[in-house]
């Protein structure tokens, strides 16, 4: 608790609150309405401000910081365009339930509603893409509102919270009292799972013949990786994960089937289709995961564990819904399984694993790296080797994102950072900035494409300013690859607007920002280029690797939109093709 006689301005109160919340970095961009706050930043040394080049970058960087650390990311932008530029970043965080506290400066109170210079209705514009938002009209409410914002952003199903503060409020003074806790009568997240429901879930688990565990970002957000591993290994069940869930179960483990869904593995999708009990944990049955809802897991009883009741039975009806914290529920259930006189049926489980091993033999991710063109998959595999699987990897959106998760094996949570829900191109570089600032000693790589990187490439300057030694792995195929792939498959190869007439020289672009640029055109140069980027004289520098990859390469397997899990399009590679779909 602060000294009770302390009288501070609104701007100073904000900074004091952030310091009390142990915020280390604010990501932002100044402007007229935010200047009192920026002056307060100047007069303190507890919180470091990271100056980005575009407000979208600020929101993504704070988001990357939050995903890498589990702590809330903090953003500060000015009114008007500062707010509107931030909206994409806020929506990105909202879709993936990432805790952010976003301070948006507002024009002075008397000007609100007058169409003042740089005025937008920040609360109105952000309302559909925040967990909650506030307009603070009274400086005496400011500290408590900030406390509420951190509480709401980080508890229950996390999400971004916007605090809009008129300029005059940041100049007004009042006594500074930061509450230790807040009680919001209308917001009481449930953490403990219902005992009866858990008992019902256990009955299904013990009776299962073909069980599958399917987990999503909720396990990562709840820091429940350990509990998930214990639960899964206690049962010996196969496990598959969504794009957002990767890392929370080690990809190298033999029980891991890979990702499921549109570009999931053959074995994961077939197991989903055939399973008789599905244990969904912290996942929301997104359309990219389920495919055709009518034919989704047609034989399965579904147990669904989630902190957010509205995620349960939203698209797929759960037979056993359990609301609560994934970690607590998994721990209790693992305990109950260990203490139970009943056991999982080993005979059925062994048969089930034999079926799955048959699917695995198809080797659905197989590709052939010839002498001529670089295969994008080979670049990701080489990256995995060079970084010994230890890098924090961010990505943008498209083919490269799918290859990243198919060929880089994530073995720990928060190692894989991407925009899953909103699918925001331009996310990767600023997110990598946030992750690198959070973990200066770790290797951070951004797997991107030549289209995505151009959506936030201005942040290369931010990297220079803060000496961030990111490694940018650009899989440059000259196309918006995923768009081109859909046009090839579903639009009779009419490649409408999916390529650019001109691309920058990425090597020179990187160099112009003071970084290192390397262009790689031949397969045998891939590994040497990566080694050059990650070690020796470039270890502490940002290196932009422009890999010229085979433009005709597609992401396989693929469950086309509206198709069922057992209707995958497989790679035309002969080794895969010759086996028939079951």
């Amino acid at each position, binding site marked *: 608790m602060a000294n009770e006689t302390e009288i501070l301005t609104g701007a100073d109160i904000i900074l004091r609150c952030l310091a009390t919340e142990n915020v280390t970095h604010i990501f932002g961009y100044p402007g007229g309405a935010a200047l009192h706050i920026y002056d307060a930043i100047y007069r303190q040394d507890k919180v470091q401000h990271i100056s980005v080049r575009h407000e979208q970058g600020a929101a993504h960087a704070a988001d990357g910081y939050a995903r890498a650390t589990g702590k809330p990311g903090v953003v500060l932008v000015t009114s008007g365009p500062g707010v509107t530029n931030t909206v994409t970043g806020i929506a990105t965080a909202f879709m993936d339930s990432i805790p952010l506290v976003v301070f948006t400066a507002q024009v002075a109170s008397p000007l609100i509603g007058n169409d003042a210079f740089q005025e937008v209705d920040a609360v*109105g514009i952000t309302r559909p893409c925040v967990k909650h938002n506030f307009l603070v009209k009274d400086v005496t409410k400011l500290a408590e509102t900030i406390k509420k914002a951190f509480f709401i952003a980080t508890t229950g199903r996390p999400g971004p919270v916007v605090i809009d503060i008129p300029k005059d409020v940041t100049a007004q003074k009042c006594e500074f009292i930061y509450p230790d806790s807040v009680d919001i009568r*209308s917001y009481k997240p449930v953490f403990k799972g219902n005992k009866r429901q858990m008992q019902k879930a256990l009955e299904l688990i013990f009776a299962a013949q073909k069980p599958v565990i399917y987990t999503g970002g909720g396990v990562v957000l709840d820091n429940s990786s350990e509990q998930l591993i214990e639960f899964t290994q206690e049962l010996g069940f196969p496990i598959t994960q969504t794009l957002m869930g990767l890392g929370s179960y080690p990809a190298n483990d033999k029980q891991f089937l890979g990702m499921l869904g549109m570009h999931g593995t053959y074995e994961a999708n077939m197991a989903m289709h055939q399973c008789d009990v599905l244990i969904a944990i912290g996942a929301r049955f997104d359309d990219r995961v389920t495919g055709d809802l009518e034919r989704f897991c047609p034989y399965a009883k579904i147990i669904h564990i989630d902190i957010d009741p*509205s995620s349960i039975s939203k698209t797929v009806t759960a037979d056993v819904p359990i609301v609560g914290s994934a970690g607590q529920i998994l721990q209790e259930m693992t305990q109950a399984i260990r203490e139970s006189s009943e056991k999982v049926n080993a005979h059925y489980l062994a048969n089930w694993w034999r079926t799955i091993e048959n699917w695995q033999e198809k080797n659905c991710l197989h590709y052939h790296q010839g002498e001529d063109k670089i295969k994008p998959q080979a670049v990701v595999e080489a990256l995995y080797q060079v970084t010994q699987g230890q890098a924090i990897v961010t990505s943008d959106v498209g083919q490269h994102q799918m290859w990243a998760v198919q060929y880089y094996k994530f073995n720990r949570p928060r190692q894989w950072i991407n925009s899953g829900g909103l699918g925001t191109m331009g996310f990767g570089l600023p997110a990598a900035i946030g992750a690198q600032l959070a973990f200066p000693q770790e290797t951070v790589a951004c797997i991107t494409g030549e289209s995505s990187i151009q959506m936030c490439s201005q942040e290369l300057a931010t990297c220079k300013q803060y000496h961030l030694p990111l490694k940018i792995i650009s899989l440059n195929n000259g196309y918006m690859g995923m768009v081109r792939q859909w046009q090839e498959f579903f639009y009779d190869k009419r490649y409408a607007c999916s390529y650019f007439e001109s691309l920058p020289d990425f090597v020179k672009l990187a160099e112009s920002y003071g970084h290192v640029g390397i262009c790689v055109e031949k397969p045998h140069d891939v590994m040497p280029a990566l080694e050059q980027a990650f070690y020796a004289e470039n270890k502490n520098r940002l290196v932009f690797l422009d890999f010229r990859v085979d433009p005709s390469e597609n992401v396989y397997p693929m469950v086309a939109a509206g198709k069922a899990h057992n209707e995958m399009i497989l790679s035309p590679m002969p080794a895969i093709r010759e086996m028939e779909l079951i």
Partner: protein
Amino acid sequence: MRHTISILVENEAGALSRIAGLFSARGYNIESLTVAPTEDATISRMTLVTRGSDAIIEQIIKQLNKLIDVIKLVDLTEGKHLEREMLLIKLSTETIEESDEVQRLVDIFRGRVIDVCATSYIVELSGHGDKLDAFIAAIKHSKILETVRSGVSGIARGNNSLHV
């Protein structure tokens, strides 16, 4: 099916638009929505009438509960409850016969004439929406100058009550 949902919300700026926004963003329909403060100045009560399958109503209730400003809600349709709506209607009464006709209908429907001028009456009528519909149907369309309906207010019968 038609559902009537009562919602207690924080009496704060933006609470109404959060609820209205939720319905438009998720494609749910609002048939009627009323809102006013309660005896506790910090709380407003809304009565919301919507239609949807059981699954959609379940989602609507979950999504409403998820809003930070929503304190508590109840689907009145699950139990016995009362619904009332008020109608104010201005009717053209240019002749004695027309005035008499209006007065007769008002008596039958147990409404009240609350304003009279040379050529028009204002009638106040409250009751279930069906009753208001029936009254409006009984009036010749050309004689209706203006109608205003309050939207539905609802409350559960018996000892169940919605409070914080």
